[in-house]
């Protein structure tokens, strides 16, 4: 595939992203037309809905989608494993456990204006990261297998703990927990977006900064080292950056699993394995795909909402199967 063709695909993705971002806020329980935005007096409510509910929600969904997709991309390259995502490392489970604790305890507190649930989910994510990171640090070397196994262990631990908390909870809390675990963007105002943006920005910048390194990590640690990559340092940076990014996303909108795993694969099929093209593509595709799914979530059975995690899985599962069948499975499944 020529560079020109790749550049054109990227440009196409950029156009689609802009289109999705511009159109999505107009859709919802009620369709808002562009003219309404310029009729202030009698349409004040709809203007408010547009600017204070739909737009922040669309932007949050975009950031969350892009962050999850980029994290998945980085982890798949680091572990040379198509199934590796930050979720494999137990980061999302840790965040979920934190949030579930908060729901169970039902304390209505906030820290510096940030909702308590976000803080506790974020702390849970950090806790999981520190455990995984600590475990791999205790043993010398920083091997992929050790890291993945540590992640699996943390995952099991957190999932079991969530089940335990749920078992002890009454019906209301139990329902709240299940609903939160499905993932969604029922947010109002710009506060959630503001908690997400700083870490999202730093994390994305780091991954865009390290595209050459990601290309080399795909070849294996020994080759990456022999080409001059400081593997240990780069892995630590990537690991922390993506974990923080995912932690903040899970804190705001619950665990949404499909994006991080599938988006990079879909982009790989479109553009090949070069991370210089793959990274921007994954960023755009992940973001706009989650915005699209969230728009569906808001409109399909309005006035009720479908959890966006359910939509992503329902759309993504069959699409991924179709990809597997329509092209060589080796290309799809390999990083």
């Amino acid at each position: 595939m020529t560079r020109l063709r790749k550049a054109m695909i990227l440009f196409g993705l950029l156009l689609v992203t802009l289109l999705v971002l511009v159109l999505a806020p107009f859709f919802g329980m009620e369709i808002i037309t562009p003219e309404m935005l310029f009729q202030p007096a009698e349409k004040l409510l709809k203007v408010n809905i547009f600017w204070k509910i739909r737009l922040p929600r669309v932007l949050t969904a975009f950031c969350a989608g892009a962050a999850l997709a980029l994290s998945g991309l980085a982890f798949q390259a680091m572990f040379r494993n198509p199934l590796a995502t930050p979720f494999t490392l137990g980061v999302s489970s840790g965040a979920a456990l934190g949030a579930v604790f908060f729901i169970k305890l039902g304390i209505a507190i906030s820290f510096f204006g940030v909702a308590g649930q976000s803080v506790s989910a974020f702390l849970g994510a950090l806790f999981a990261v520190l455990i995984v990171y600590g475990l791999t640090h205790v043993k010398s070397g920083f091997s992929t297998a050790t890291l993945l196994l540590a992640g699996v262990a943390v995952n099991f631990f957190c999932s079991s703990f969530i089940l335990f908390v749920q078992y002890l909870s009454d019906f209301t809390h139990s329902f709240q927990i299940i609903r939160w675990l499905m993932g969604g963007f029922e947010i109002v105002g710009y506060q959630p977006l503001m908690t997400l943006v700083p870490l999202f920005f730093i994390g994305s910048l780091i991954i865009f900064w390290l595209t050459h390194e990601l290309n080399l990590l795909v070849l294996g640690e020994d080759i990456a080292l022999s080409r001059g990559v400081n593997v240990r340092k780069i892995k630590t940076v990537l690991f922390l950056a993506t974990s923080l990014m995912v932690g903040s996303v899970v804190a705001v909108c619950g665990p949404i699993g499909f994006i991080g795993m599938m988006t990079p694969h879909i982009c790989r099929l479109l553009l090949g394995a070069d991370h210089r093209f793959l990274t921007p593509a994954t960023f755009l595709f992940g973001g706009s795909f989650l915005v699209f799914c969230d728009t569906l979530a808001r409109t399909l059975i309005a006035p009720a909402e479908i959890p966006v995690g359910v939509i992503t899985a329902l759309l993504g599962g069959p699409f991924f199967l179709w990809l597997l069948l329509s092209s060589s499975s080796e290309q799809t499944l390999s990083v």
Partner: protein
Amino acid sequence: MIHSKDENKMALPLIEIKNLSFSIARKRILDSISFTIDAGEYLSIIGPNGAGKSTLLKCLMRIYPVETGMIHFRGVLIQKFSQKALAREICYVPQSDGRFFPFTVEEFILLGRYPYLSPFTSVRQTDKAAVHQALTLTQTSHLAKRQINTLSGGEKQIVFIAAALAQGSPILLLDEPTTFLDPKHESEIYRILRKLNQQLKMTIIVVTHNINQAALQSDRLIILKNGQLTFCGPASQIMTNDILAPAYDMNFRFMSHPTTGQTVIAPEVIHDAP
């Protein structure tokens, strides 16, 4: 592409390995190894499986950190090099292990330019020239657009050498480059190595099980056994059972090559006990 040698530093050995020991999971893999390598030398490392040959290469490439002992490059401790600086000195062709590479040959070779790249930079003219030169040297230009995974084992191995060459380092390490290859590809690889050594004055360090080839084209040979250096000397001296028999725990037969007249070996046939 190949660095000119610094005349002032010619007195120093290019690589000096002193009392190098290395253990994995408390098992001693390398045991107090010392030797030197001069610039432009062709050195083969032979020895039975599990002798520590690959580990020695990985220590030189700092894939394994030096625990005990010292490795100096041009008089500078290996630990003092950044990974990029080390990559500009040494390139490495690993053992082929059937791993998946999702790149085309050209993309893969271009990744060898990493030590000269900074983030967000695109490919410069010098990088393109280095890739072109690597393809030409290994006569693989016709494979440039192919996916690596569609190549045969022999083509793949030559492309790996090309990728290491694009790195532009004066020292080339190869870990069993001809294992699993047919005789044609094997001799092709040895031809390329000879060319790199003689025409470009690259220092070649190759781990191999092909004792005949090692003796034929190396300047010097070292033999490892159980992590210890049991022989280090000119290639011409190894063709005796005094040296080879204890290394491999078996006897060899020696004969003259029908056309070149050089000594070649054949392993003694081992019969089953009646």
